[in-house]
């Protein structure tokens, strides 16, 4: 009877709101005084978004292009002139053989190879719907995506201007006897058939920035106490592990939301990323992701012996997140084992969620399959953190 009562009493004491609030206040005050950390919180998102957004141009121009014109017709000349006039293509070689051009493409010397077959204009005139062959080095899909869509328009414009009579697409459309274009542009995206859109990078960047800064910041939270000797004091008080852990991450949740807002504003007004979905949903998702990331940090912090170790462990977490989450490389292009690791990482799910909300306007039914893995992750990570938190100095 007595023992049961004591057990209940101890259970109730596991979490006291007053004690927890004490820790939250203390962390806020300490954070406020830590100027460098504060600068990092604001500086890193701005720096990264500007670097990724501007310096790393997702819409590159003047890409080296080889033209193999076996067909010396009026149309070919006009098409090549059009290419030259467009900003996207820089004709670097006009007199290569196909084999030479192929190896130049393989070496990465040229980005595109435009092949106008020998009988192109003859077949065009006959209305045989010939194909213009374009091979693109799509290892970096962002490098080629815009140029390729420009190419389509260019070809259409050349066709509209140069082709007369029934071959002219406008005339044909007016006549309404053939819905087809007079010729086809056959694009081979070499080396990487799945071409991601350039909008991927800015939303993806949010998760990367949050992961990097928040894991680092909370990673230091516990080890700092240990290194400064204040941990002994904290342990001597009645605070419980769950109070310390959750209290310590509270200020960083606020910081995560501030960082996310900075990135969202930049995405909207600097990079014109579309906002297809609902903003409250977006913030709720960000909140869940921030919490998941912070539990990782606090777990690393309770495992690490000192601040240096915490930073090192942070990198062990950050690198796989960066590489295997689908931010750097298309997720479906990764081998099976890498996908399995990727599925565990919160950043993978967050990338899908935020792209889903911003670009596709997804709502709860589509989002849920990516949300529950995050929630599960939080529960497991927090469990590990509490288990590793040493109540004693042993």
């Amino acid at each position: 009877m007595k023992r049961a009562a004591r057990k209940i009493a101890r259970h109730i004491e596991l979490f006291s709101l007053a004690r927890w609030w004490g820790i939250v206040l203390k962390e806020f005050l300490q954070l406020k005084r830590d100027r460098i950390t504060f600068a990092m919180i604001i500086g890193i998102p701005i720096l990264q978004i500007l670097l990724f957004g501007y310096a790393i141009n997702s819409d590159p121009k003047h890409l080296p292009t080889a033209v193999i014109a076996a067909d010396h017709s009026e149309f070919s000349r006009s098409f090549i002139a059009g290419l030259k006039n467009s900003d996207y293509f820089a004709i670097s070689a006009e007199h290569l053989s196909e084999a030479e051009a192929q190896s130049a493409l393989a070496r990465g010397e040229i980005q595109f190879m435009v092949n106008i077959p020998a009988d192109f204009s003859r077949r065009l005139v006959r209305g045989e719907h010939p194909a213009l062959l374009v091979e693109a080095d799509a290892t970096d899909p962002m490098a080629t995506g815009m140029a390729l869509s420009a190419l389509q328009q260019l070809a259409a414009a050349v066709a509209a201007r140069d082709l007369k009579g029934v071959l002219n697409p406008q005339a044909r459309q007016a006549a309404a006897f053939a819905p087809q274009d007079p010729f086809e542009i056959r694009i081979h995206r070499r080396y990487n058939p799945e071409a991601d859109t350039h909008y991927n990078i800015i939303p993806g960047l949010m998760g990367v920035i949050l992961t990097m800064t928040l894991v680092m910041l909370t990673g230091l939270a516990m080890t700092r106490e240990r290194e400064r000797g204040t941990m002994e004091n904290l342990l001597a008080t009645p605070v419980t592990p769950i109070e310390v852990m959750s209290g310590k991450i509270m200020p960083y949740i606020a910081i995560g939301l501030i960082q996310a807002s900075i990135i969202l504003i930049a995405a909207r007004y600097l990079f014109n990323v579309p906002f297809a979905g609902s903003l409250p949903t977006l913030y709720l998702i960000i909140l869940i992701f921030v919490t998941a990331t912070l539990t990782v940090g606090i777990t690393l912090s309770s495992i690490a012996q000192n601040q240096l170790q915490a930073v090192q462990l942070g990198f062990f977490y950050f690198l796989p997140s960066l590489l295997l989450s689908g931010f750097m490389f298309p997720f479906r292009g990764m081998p099976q084992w890498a996908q399995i690791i990727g599925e565990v990482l919160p950043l993978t799910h967050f990338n899908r969620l935020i792209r889903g909300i911003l670009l596709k306007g997804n709502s709860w039914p589509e989002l849920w399959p990516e949300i529950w893995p995050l929630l599960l992750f939080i529960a497991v990570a927090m469990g590990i953190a509490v288990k590793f938190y040493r109540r004693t100095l042993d």
Partner: protein
Amino acid sequence: MNADAFQYAIDVRGLNKHFGPRHVVRDVSLKVGRGEIFGFLGPNGSGKTTSIRLMCGLLTPDSGEGTCLGYDILSQQAEIRRHVGYMTQRFSFWEDLTLRENLDFIARVYAMPDRRNCVERTLEELGLSARARQRTGALSGGWKQRLALAACMLHKPKLLLLDEPTAGVDPAARRDFWEELHRLAAEGISILVSTHYMDEAERCHKLAYIAYGKLLAQGTAAEIVAAQPLRTWSIHGRNLAALSQELRQKEGVAQTVVFGDLLHVSGDNPALLEQSVRRAVESAPEKVRCEQIATSIEDVFIYMMNRSDGEEGSPGEHG
């Protein structure tokens, strides 16, 4: 429920603790009565801090048992934390918080009723109201120590564990500090205080001496001195350093200490000691005189430490 039923504030038996291959605390048993100031002495690395941490539940002993304020040190560590005030050896409050913020945090985690007043009163009693908004890191050593004591007293603990609270504090501040301790003890608060200073040892009700993890003596200062067969002679004169060196080689002499114009010579065989001292005095190049004096607690402690030296290795050298 059993908070007031205990007889001893601390009652531990056979505590042992290893850190890797080092046996840091060996079979330590001690009892601290209520309202008693209990001095815990020993050289650096002798296991004082570890013993204190074992008693307040910050470390788990490898073997041994006991109670602290009637709570079991093995199973009721949470209750012990709530009722014990522990002042760490190294200043362990948050230096980037102000004085008031530190006290406020402590008051919150102990869920003090009337928190605000409690903090203000403490600041006033410390005489630090004017500096309440100052960063704690900017305080001098003496003030830090006073703040630490005030903070660990904030939740009105019945037992204080103070780990070398006066290390690096000037003599006047130390005197004030001890007056405060005696005032608290008079209110019925039990205090275990570790120290290096012999003058402080003499201000304790009871003492324990620990060296190399082993408790060598326990009791009042007089009891400890009486329990040892140590006799001491005092030699007055000049150039005592050479005499001290010479005497140390002699039969019956355990240790010699020079205090300016005084030389204390101690030994555990009264007859041999007297013989050696008298011969040395007679053969001294300058005129010196000698007399037998009461053995001091310091002489006893140094004697005990030298005697236990080397037994079962010397783990103290690493700590």
